[in-house]
């Protein structure tokens, strides 16, 4: 993510009012649309630029997000999120190269910044059994639901916890992806020339546990990112109905996990291998995934300033419980290796993670008969850390243009130094209004 600070906006209220009135105008126009127009014979191909290279069409959405803290925070105002966003997307074909652009411009009221970012700015070319995609792109793989064992592409945790759309959990990478498809195996090779970190938690939006002071804090910091590359590989194949995949990653831990010689927070080197399988089972889907993360700068676990190696394991199951109600559950284990060394050499062993961090998740998704109304509940609960995180969301899509979303992020925990427990003061509720065009 390379947010570009353009200017401080001083007409926030006026902009907001203008935006809302534009949206209201649009909804009236929508209601006036005659059904007959939707059968217009002329625009069948125009609407499909992927099949008609002459068509140039811009789509996107405008969106307002307003989030409010439910609990008081001594570090922040009551506003947990306030975005006004414009998304513009287009694609075009030039000499068999497909260009794709997705830009986001938004005013983030919490930071007081007008920002611009590309989520997608790529050129794609296919030849024989290969697809090549280069540029800024979103990359995802693995079988977990909001749990990532082998996906070391950047995540935007700030957006995830603040009520932005789920798609913003994934931050873009500036990368080159080469995919090869063969009868024996398929392979994805991703090269990221310069390390892209997660958009990790900082004090800008959230308060969290700061081990240096042993208390909740909201420090604003920018960790020192290495100027080095990353490589990610996936080899996969579907056998009958079972999807099998093996993974490799060579790069860095994605969120700050180390302190360098100057006392700065930074990212230490990481190499990982893993495996996953997903298959239909008992009228549902079962998935299993594992990964071994080798902390290259501290493989013995003796350096207290760098994360230890880990072994991660995930088992998940999903099925439809009743008509239009789907349930899923996951069990996740994060085992810290060389744990004895971690504790022995740590200056603050009381704040170190459990040797076996366990996490369970449950998701319930419901939609009504015409799919206009949706409800989703996602809960994380960690038996080892005794903390929990609930994501509750309901959305209403009355027509093709409007989407209204109401949701809540609820954190709780027995201790202040656990992953979700530290976020207790950041509980928030939010409302999103989106107009697609």
């Amino acid at each position: 993510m390379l947010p570009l600070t353009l200017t401080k906006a001083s007409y926030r209220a006026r902009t907001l009012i203008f935006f809302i009135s534009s949206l209201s105008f649009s909804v009236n126009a929508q209601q006036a649309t005659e059904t007959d127009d939707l059968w217009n014979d002329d625009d069948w191909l125009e609407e499909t630029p992927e099949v008609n290279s002459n068509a140039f069409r811009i789509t996107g959405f405008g969106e307002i997000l307003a989030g409010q803290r439910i609990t008081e925070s001594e570090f922040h105002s009551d506003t947990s999120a306030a975005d006004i966003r414009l998304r513009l997307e287009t694609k075009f074909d030039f000499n068999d190269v497909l260009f794709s652009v997705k830009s986001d411009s938004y005013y983030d009221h919490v930071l007081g910044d007008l920002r611009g970012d590309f989520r997608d700015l790529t050129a794609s070319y296919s030849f024989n059994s290969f697809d090549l995609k280069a540029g800024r792109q979103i990359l995802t793989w693995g079988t977990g639901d909001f749990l990532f064992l082998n996906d070391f592409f950047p995540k935007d945790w700030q957006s995830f916890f603040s009520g932005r759309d789920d798609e913003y959990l994934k931050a873009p990478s500036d990368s080159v992806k080469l995919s090869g498809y063969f009868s024996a195996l398929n392979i994805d090779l991703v090269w990221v020339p310069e390390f892209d970190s997660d958009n990790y938690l900082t004090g800008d939006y959230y308060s969290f546990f700061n081990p240096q002071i042993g208390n909740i804090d909201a420090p604003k910091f920018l960790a020192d990112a290495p100027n080095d590359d990353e490589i990610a590989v996936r080899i996969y194949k579907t056998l009958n109905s079972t999807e099998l995949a093996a993974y490799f990653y060579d790069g860095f831990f994605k969120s700050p996990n180390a302190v360098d010689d100057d006392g700065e927070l930074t990212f230490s080197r990481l190499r990982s291998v893993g495996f996953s399988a997903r298959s239909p089972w008992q009228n549902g889907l079962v998935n299993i995934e594992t990964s071994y993360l080798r902390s290259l700068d501290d493989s013995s676990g003796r350096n207290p300033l760098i994360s230890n190696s880990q072994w991660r394991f995930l088992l998940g199951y999903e099925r439809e419980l009743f008509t239009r109600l789907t349930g899923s559950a996951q069990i996740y284990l994060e085992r810290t290796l060389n744990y004895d060394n971690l504790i022995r050499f740590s200056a603050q062993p009381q704040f170190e993670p459990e040797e076996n961090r366990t996490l369970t998740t449950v998701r319930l998704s419901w939609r009504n008969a015409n799919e206009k109304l949706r409800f989703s509940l996602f809960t994380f609960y960690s038996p080892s850390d005794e903390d929990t995180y609930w994501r509750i969301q309901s959305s209403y899509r009355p027509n093709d243009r409007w989407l209204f979303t109401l949701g809540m992020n609820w954190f709780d925990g027995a201790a202040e130094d656990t992953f979700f427990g530290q976020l207790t003061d950041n509980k928030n509720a939010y409302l999103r209004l989106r107009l697609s065009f």
Partner: protein
Amino acid sequence: MQFISTVKKALALSTGIYLSSLALSPVYAQSDIDVRKIVKESELASYYAGDDGRSMARMVIVDANGNSQIRQFIILRKDIEDGKDQELMVFFSRPADVRDTVFRVVKHTQTDDDRWLYLPGLDLVKRISAGDKRTSFVGSHFFYEDVSGRNTELDDYELVEELESSYRIKGTPKDPATVEFDHYFVNIDKATKIPLEVDFYDSKDRLYRKVSAVKVEEIEGIPTVVHSRVEDVLNGGATEMQFRFVDYNLGLPNDIFSERSLRTPPRDWLRITN
């Protein structure tokens, strides 16, 4: 005369046709007509035309209040074996918020289908677990089962009447607890074997849902439904679906029905021009 027949699957979806097929189980017919043969022919005509097919489809969904929505997509279909398994891919282009979403189905007649959805915003290939197939297909009045075909072994069938140009057949579910209908009547055209109308009745014997072929055209010698309609009779609202650029026997290669095409749609096979 007694006919004991079982018909395999009415797996569905030729490039254009989305009407339930039928089959029969033990049936007491009024004449010497072989109901099983009719249904078998109807199934193949509706859902297995050619070896493969491509079509652009547009749905207009109108709710009870008259508000309309649109869905537009290209379907690629390839039969693995006539009357049996099929490969399907659906590439959405409208509306804006589902644009570039791709749906992939490997239809199995002996086990649950395999289904995947590609969500471009997250670059996520989401696998979808087996579910109730009598629920809305992308928010329309069509059910997933109207699109992919109802397994004909789930119903008993009976020839009700032979009309001048069609057969009227009654379908009754073997396990009523799994479906919302009590029974239905279907009219199958004698000449083309296309199901022209399906009327669904609830347990109070009310007609509540009507699926019809509005327009049938002969394309490349194959009778093809190019306009169909589902109506919610009790609550109001209907979805119309039209097909354009229908093409059969394109020689679609097997390997385009794959995860590759979810992330990178096979543009050569999706390039449709006038």
